């Protein structure tokens, strides 16, 4: 005991210079190696560590594990729900796109049909109009021909009358019709 006390005194002096170790050191030297306290420390360690183990095993850890599991379940559930909603959304988009494509096709068809119909109608109307025009043209031409022949038939008559008037005023005597028409016909040839 005396040697351990001496040892602790030297340690004490190293650190503090002039300090004298307390009486407590006299009982066992360097405290961690004092075997007198071992039994008590082991006993209380066993009691406290056993208690801690029991609390951890029965209360704390199941509780934390429960919280973590709840969270994991919730996240997994939310992800599944999100996935389901996404699939629904995708299906809706696909349906919408299909409907859109159908509508576009139909619109295309309707536009095409209408265009064709209008074209045919326009064509028909134009044909009709052209027919009417050409008929009128033919009629007009016929009338022109008629008028022309008529006019031409009047020419000799006018010429005869004019010639009669001319001759009468020149010589004071009207020529006979036969002479006149012979002369007019000759001039007109």
């Amino acid at each position, binding site marked *: 005991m005396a040697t351990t006390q001496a040892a602790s005194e030297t340690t004490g002096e190293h650190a503090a210079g002039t300090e004298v170790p*307390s009486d407590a050191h006299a009982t066992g030297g360097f405290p*961690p190696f004092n075997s007198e306290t071992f039994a008590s420390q082991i006993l209380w360690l066993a009691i406290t560590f056993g208690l801690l183990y029991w609390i951890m095993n029965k209360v704390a*850890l199941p509780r934390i594990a429960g919280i973590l599991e709840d969270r994991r379940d919730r996240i997994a559930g939310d992800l599944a729900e999100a996935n389901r909603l996404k699939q629904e959304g995708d299906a809706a988009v696909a349906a919408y796109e299909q409907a859109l494509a159908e509508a576009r096709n139909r619109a295309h068809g309707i536009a095409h049909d209408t265009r064709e119909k209008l074209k045919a109608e326009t064509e028909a109307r134009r044909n009709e109009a052209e027919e009417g025009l050409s008929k009128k043209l033919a009629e007009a031409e016929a009338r022109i021909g008629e008028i022309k022949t008529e006019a031409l038939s009047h020419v000799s008559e006018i010429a005869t009358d004019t010639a009669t008037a001319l001759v009468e005023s020149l010589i004071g005597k009207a020529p006979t019709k036969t002479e006149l028409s012979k002369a007019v016909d000759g001039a007109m040839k």
Partner: protein
Amino acid sequence: MAQDPIHQFQISKIIPIEVGSLDLSFTNSALFMVATVAVTSLFLIMGTSGRGLVPSRWQSMVEMSYEFVASTLRSSAGNEGMRFFPFVFSLFMFVLIANLLGMFPYFFTVTSHIIVTFALAMLVISTVVVYGFAKHGTKFLGLFVPHGVPGALIPLVTLIEVISFLSRPISLSVRLFANMLAGHITLKVFTGFVVSLLASESLGLFGPVTSILPLIMGVALTGLEFLVAFLQAYVFTVLTCMYLNDALHPSH
């Protein structure tokens, strides 16, 4: 006495209990063991009282410590190792909180006594041995005979393996004990210098001026000691996990 670096490890009786010749007193060491259990339990149970789906800061610290120990155990001992989770978690929290409580001035550091760390180490090793034999029977001894070793070398290798196995509780306990002890002594010595330099009359003005140096050292060492307190708890836990892995999978 105030500057004696060993005084902080002194065990004093609070409630003397004697059974026959055995001294089983409730000491300051026992008080801090109780405090460690109380702090750990309150930290874990009050932190989770909200049972929040979105954790509060406190609760996320609790969850972090849980996940931290769980991932350490799972990575060294696999999923089968999770059966030891309450044990490993208790060990980690006990050592960590005891180390951290020891960082308070005038507080007693439970883990600075070799008998405490040795008892914990023996608890680990006896768990390994008992579980190893209970689960694998004599095959557990295959732990000492590694595969792929040439026949002539087997006795030598087995001897080395046995010695290394037997030294495990010693290395496990001495590592923690020595780190805590040395750290606390160093801290006490350096901060003791501050007081000595301030109080010394022979140095005149020189003493108070230079006392800043050990003070800076003391502050730095305090930071280091917090790191060591955590690191040693972690090292103790990791090694425990590796030893438990041997009990679960004795063949190398």
